């Protein structure tokens, strides 16, 4: 991941903004019919753009690094690392690491042996599972034995699975060589500051060299180690993603500095996540009333940092034992008890065949978007608006409004459709209690959107959405998201032109703060 100098041009071809690659692919008419590299390699090109091939190979099936891949491929985390070596004010250590996971969630702890069995069970059941991550529930590098033992066992049993690791960075420099040796090609470091004055407000203490450090000293050691670790990894060509938690009033402005610091050291992606904080989490920030950012504040900051490097807008802050596509959690199917009872056969060929099919679908989706975008080319309009989409993956509008646990948010303009984030919500249709209330919560969560795209929606929520000024759109059920959104946008612009409707600004939206225990 030595793409430190990602400028606008290469950004357009990066994992995050792939408009131009889509163009390139749509124009690439010989695809699949001409000789040479043939269909298979052509299919695998969806999304590469100007990324160097070696980096593309690393990210193309990685749902956390490639926005495009996250629609198609699945990842899993195993919770083998319970201990941590620092304290964050947004963390309550009864729960999972809040850096990497959802606050307020407890993962089922596994031994390395149990973890491997689980990986094989999941990989056999979900062939598009391509990535295994260790992210907690504490800090993987505060549990080096368990973490690396797990990687070693998985690498032996299932060599096609990519390995990744998330850390607070304190012990990173000590383990870089081991990370390289185990061919772990993706590392996530959570860096919330590059200024100890700010760090002291986020980290009350660290445990380092057999001592507990506090205050400025603690923050300085932590930051030095994080940046040193980042440099050492990028020197070795290991992809690094930086996570930052946006804490309004503490590091929100400062994250622009962080963005510069990590970019100059070769980070591949910067993922700015909202602080999720509520009193019931029992964290310092939750208890002292520190608020999280609104959806607007988050997007504004992501937009400022975007010019500088790849931003990751599709991050779900997965829990440490998450299983499935981003935004989906099938971990309940793979509890330790169930996994240990399973008879697992690891079929590499079946997995490969399945993944080849997925590649074909990816190319089709990209081509469909291009086709629709071409129709928009003649439109001249400065209008930019957000729409929410209910999806279960594969890049399709294929979720019922009432079943959606989250909505993906796309920004539409005459330049196309761009994923800018996602909003978690309660399922509206859980039956029984609280439906009115949860509908109101959903509307608050997507209040900044002009429309919501669903596979299906009931009459009552439909009229409530309309009342709130959000247009429910169900005519594109089971079609590709981008293509449909662009087609809808075109008709929207026409309706505005004929005066049938008026373009009005939407208000703020709220980021869900309370714990989701069962939802992904």
């Amino acid at each position, binding site marked *: 991941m030595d793409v430190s100098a990602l400028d606008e041009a290469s950004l357009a071809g990066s994992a995050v903004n792939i408009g131009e690659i889509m163009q390139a692919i749509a124009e690439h008419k010989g695809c699949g019919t001409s000789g040479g590299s043939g269909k298979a390699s052509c299919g695998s090109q969806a999304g590469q753009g100007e990324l160097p091939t070696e980096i593309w190979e690393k990210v193309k099936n990685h749902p956390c690094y490639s926005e495009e891949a996250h629609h198609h491929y699945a990842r899993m985390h195993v919770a083998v690392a*319970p*201990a*941590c*070596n620092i*304290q964050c004010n947004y963390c309550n*250590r*009864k729960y999972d690491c809040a850096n990497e996971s959802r606050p307020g969630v407890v993962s089922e702890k596994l031994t390395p042996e149990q973890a491997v069995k689980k990986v094989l069970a999941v990989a056999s059941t979900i062939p598009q599972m391509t990535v295994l991550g260790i992210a907690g*529930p*504490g800090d993987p590098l*505060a*549990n080096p034995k368990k973490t690396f033992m797990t990687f070693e066992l998985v690498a032996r049993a299932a060599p096609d699975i990519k390995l990744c690791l998330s850390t607070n960075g304190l012990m990173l420099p000590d383990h870089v060589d081991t990370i390289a040796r185990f061919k772990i090609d993706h590392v996530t470091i959570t860096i919330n500051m590059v200024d100890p004055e700010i760090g002291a407000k986020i980290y009350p203490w660290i*445990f380092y060299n*057999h*001592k*507990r450090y506090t205050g400025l000293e603690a923050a300085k050691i932590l930051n030095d180690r994080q940046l040193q670790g980042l440099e050492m990894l990028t020197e070795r060509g290991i992809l690094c993603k930086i996570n930052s938690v946006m804490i309004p009033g503490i590091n929100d402005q400062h994250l622009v500095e962080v963005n510069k610091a990590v970019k100059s050291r070769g980070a591949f992606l910067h993922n700015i996540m909202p602080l999720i904080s509520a009193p019931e989490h029992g964290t310092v920030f939750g208890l002292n009333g520190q608020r999280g950012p609104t959806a607007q504040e988050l997007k504004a900051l992501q937009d400022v940092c975007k010019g500088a490097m790849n931003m990751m807008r599709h991050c779900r802050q997965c829990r440490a034992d998450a299983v499935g596509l981003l935004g989906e959690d099938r971990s309940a199917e793979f509890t330790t008890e169930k996994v240990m009872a399973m008879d697992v056969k690891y079929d590499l060929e079946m997995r490969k065949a399945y993944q080849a099919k997925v590649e074909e679908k990816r190319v089709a989706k990209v081509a469909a978007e291009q086709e629709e975008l071409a129709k928009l080319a003649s439109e001249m309009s400065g209008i930019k608006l957000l729409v929410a989409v209910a999806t279960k993956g594969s890049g399709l509008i294929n979720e019922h409004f009432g079943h959606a646990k989250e909505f993906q948010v796309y920004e539409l303009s005459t330049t196309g459709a761009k994923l800018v984030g996602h909003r978690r919500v309660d399922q509206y249709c859980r039956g029984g209690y609280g439906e009115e209330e949860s509908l109101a919560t959903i509307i608050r969560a997507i209040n900044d959107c002009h429309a919501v795209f669903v596979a299906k929606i009931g009459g009552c929520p439909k009229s409530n959405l309309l009342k709130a000024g959000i247009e429910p759109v169900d005519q594109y059920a089971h079609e590709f998201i981008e293509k449909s959104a662009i087609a809808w946008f075109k008709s929207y612009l026409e309706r505005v032109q004929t005066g049938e409707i008026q373009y009005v600004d939407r208000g703020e939206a709220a980021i869900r703060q309370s714990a989701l225990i069962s939802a992904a």
Partner: protein
Amino acid sequence: MPFKIIASQCTSCSACEQECPNVAISEKGGTSVIDPKKCTECIGHFEEPQCVAVCPVDNTCVIDTSLPRY
């Protein structure tokens, strides 16, 4: 007086277990427990008792005053 762990506060994160120079800590019944016969209060090893320094829950690793000093 060796150290003990207040079980009701322990998150069983095992951080202390990894740091103890005397391998005095192990998991029992869902929480970590210190074997008072092995604990040396870290004297001779480190300046601070390691379990206290690393534990995320304050006042969870504490001196067991019911036992004689190491």
